């Protein structure tokens, strides 16, 4: 059974009143937990600080992080337990990405890949690629 891997997406909100490096350590802990349990991170996006639509734990801001990864199913239980115990994580959401969601992702990625290629001028392209590389760790996850 542990051989069966599925693609998951997890979004969590870190307490934004922490320093940047403290936030990074919180994020790294989560990433470590995924990779050490046989998971593989496909995409990692830091949304950054965002205002909440309603206060959570008397806070109005949070640092949003989205991680897409493939892993055996027992990782989710461990991950959610970690989220629950870590007090600097305010909210979390973990989902299985089904076929439909994955298909939507790849078409969106293809569209995104096509459009800038047509519009972005050649000298701007490397800059855009560098920016993308900073946020998306594994662009090879999506067939480009």
């Amino acid at each position, binding site marked *: 059974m542990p051989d069966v891997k599925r693609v998951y997406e997890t979004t969590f*909100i870190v307490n934004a009143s922490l320093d940047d490096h403290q936030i990074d350590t919180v994020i790294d802990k989560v990433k470590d937990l995924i990779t050490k349990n046989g998971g593989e991170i496909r995409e990692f996006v830091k949304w950054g600080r965002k205002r909440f*639509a*309603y206060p*959570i734990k008397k806070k109005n801001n949070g640092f949003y992080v*989205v991680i897409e990864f493939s892993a055996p199913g027992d990782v989710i239980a461990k991950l959610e337990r970690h989220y629950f115990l870590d007090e600097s994580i305010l909210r979390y959401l973990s989902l299985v990405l089904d076929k*439909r969601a994955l*298909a*939507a992702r790849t078409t969106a990625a293809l569209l995104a890949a096509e459009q800038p290629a047509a519009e972005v001028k050649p000298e701007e392209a490397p800059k855009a690629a560098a920016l993308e590389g900073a946020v998306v760790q594994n662009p090879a996850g999506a067939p480009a």
Partner: protein
Amino acid sequence: MAYTRNSTSRPGSDRRGSSQRGSSGQIRKKRTCRFCDNKEDYVDYKAEKKLQRFVSEQGRIIPKRITGTCAKHQRMLVTAIKRARHLALLPFVSDAVK
């Protein structure tokens, strides 16, 4: 029971009937599902700007008879909105009502 239901649903059905049949002389364009039109097969909870269009000012989910969304996409939309609410991307109740 049937009578009361009829009477409560009357204002809505009247409004619809008049606009569809054009008793006021107006012919309304048929609304189509935006997701079907765009061939989208998945509604992402992270696209809060997109979801906001399907939420009223108070933060309530707008029924599909108003927005024209098809049943399949309305179901996906509803889960997406609820997920977005959990992550405080969308309000449960907007500040104006509170």
